[in-house]
């Protein structure tokens, strides 16, 4: 397989530090009603500790499938995912999946949601963390509110707070800001970067928004249409906060646009 060779070599150059996540030859084939759908084709990828990685691709290409496989919700047809030296075999509180805002529990208050994963902790520590993370995501004063009383952006921040409260090593975000309006989306990106700097988590962020990927990520993984392969990995070598009118930003962004454009022509 030609793709495998090229992908593997780009990766080694980009990622010489110790890897937190290693995706090794992952292949996912769905078998539905006797129809075989190849979703992921031989994905090889390494993510460094503390890295912010964006996975970018056309919608329906299988980037969410890749994220679900890394989360352990889905076992790959072939290959494996290794995180911190362990082969992933199921979901784990050390890596929390953040859905779109629909993932918060509507029957729990803000503090109930943030404290949801903290059932093993003593009450005092629970309270402390709920308070801390409500503050971190700017939801103090709303502790007793129910999600239906919150705006979309607040619900999304609540879900991030719920994820962070269990102190995971990694956050896996699946188009988390896709349902938000464009102004809220920009604010949320800034918030996420702030939290990432404060909490030093490894983040894998799936998006179909090129601007979003270039604004946020250390590296952007560009995926092809289905069956998804890694088409290119782009290193975004601009320090935060990023000037989105700088030459380098536009250069990187347009490079990816071109990549996706080529992918569409194929």
């Amino acid at each position, binding site marked *: 397989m030609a793709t495998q060779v090229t992908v593997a070599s780009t990766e080694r150059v980009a990622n010489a530090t110790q890897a937190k996540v290693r995706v090794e030859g992952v292949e996912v084939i769905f078998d539905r009603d006797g129809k075989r759908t190849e979703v992921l084709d031989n994905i090889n990828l390494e993510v460094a500790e503390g890295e912010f990685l964006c996975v970018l691709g056309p919608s329906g290409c299988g980037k969410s499938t890749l994220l679900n496989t890394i989360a352990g919700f889905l076992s790959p047809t072939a290959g494996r995912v290794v995180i911190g030296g362990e082969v992933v075999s199921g*979901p784990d509180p050390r890596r929390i999946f953040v859905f779109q805002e*629909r993932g918060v529990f*509507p*029957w729990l208050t803000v503090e109930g949601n943030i404290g949801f994963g903290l*059932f093993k902790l003593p009450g005092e520590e629970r309270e402390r963390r709920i308070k801390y993370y409500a503050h971190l995501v700017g939801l103090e004063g709303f502790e007793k509110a*129910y999600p239906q009383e919150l705006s979309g952006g607040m619900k999304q921040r609540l879900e991030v707070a719920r994820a962070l409260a269990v102190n995971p090593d990694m956050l896996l975000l699946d188009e988390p800001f896709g349902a938000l309006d464009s102004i809220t989306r920009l604010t949320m990106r800034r918030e996420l970067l702030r939290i990432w700097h404060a909490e030093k988590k490894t983040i894998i962020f799936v998006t179909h928004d090129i601007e979003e990927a270039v604004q946020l990520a250390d590296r952007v993984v560009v995926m092809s249409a289905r069956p998804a392969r890694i088409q290119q990995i782009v290193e975004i070598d601009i320090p935060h906060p990023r000037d989105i009118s700088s030459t380098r930003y536009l250069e990187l962004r347009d490079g990816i646009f071109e990549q996706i454009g080529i992918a569409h022509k194929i």
Partner: protein
Amino acid sequence: MSALSQPGKWEKFFWPLLTGSVLLAIWYYAVVVTKTTVFPMPVSVVKGTVELARKGVLLNYIGDSLHRVAVGYGLAAVLGIPLGLMLGWYPAASRVVNPVIQMVRPISPIAWIPLSILWFGVGDSAAMYLIFVGSFFPIVVASTNAARNVPSIYRRAGRNFGLNRASLLAKVVFPAALPQIIIGLRISLGIAWLVVVAAEMVAVNSGLGYLVMDSRNSGKRYDLVVAAMLMIGVIGLGLDFGFRWLEKIRSVRWGFRQES
């Protein structure tokens, strides 16, 4: 009063009161004009109710009926909700049990009367069993569907935070299904109230259903028959109101279409 403004406080009482008065007037004049002997006057129904209350029968009978519903329906809820959740949770179990449920469910609780009297004798237990049979299946079916319709996103989030199967069921599936379960409970409470009246006509000698039959059998007191019927209606309305109030609890309100 414009259509956009909030209805005033007086309106909340005014409209039902007006409707009630108009219906009462129609009832009164219909009896007066037709000079019928097969339907009592409103006044005699009120007098009958007072008479029943004075004898101490009314409150006792209401108590008996409510007691039977509480036991039969309570048992149906306590057994039906967990069973329904399990069936919704394990599709394999549902495939085994569902054909049985779907076959027994359409049998009217009334059809169970002979067997229930054979098994439990004439008395409270027979009536309670009928209420149980009548409300158990709707509760199971509602709970099964409710559990099955819980979005997978909630279950995945629960698993992600390290919940085992039992706590996933208790902390995610049950609360997520609760609004739908409450709707099922409300419908089956209505059924339970229908069934208690039917059961009391046959299986026992107290309660509002018994009062309807007994008033006719002993002296053709149709004023008391109608008084008992009205009582049944009013209490049924009250029970339903109780459930509407339950739907306003904040941890389930998200599941109901409601403004504010």
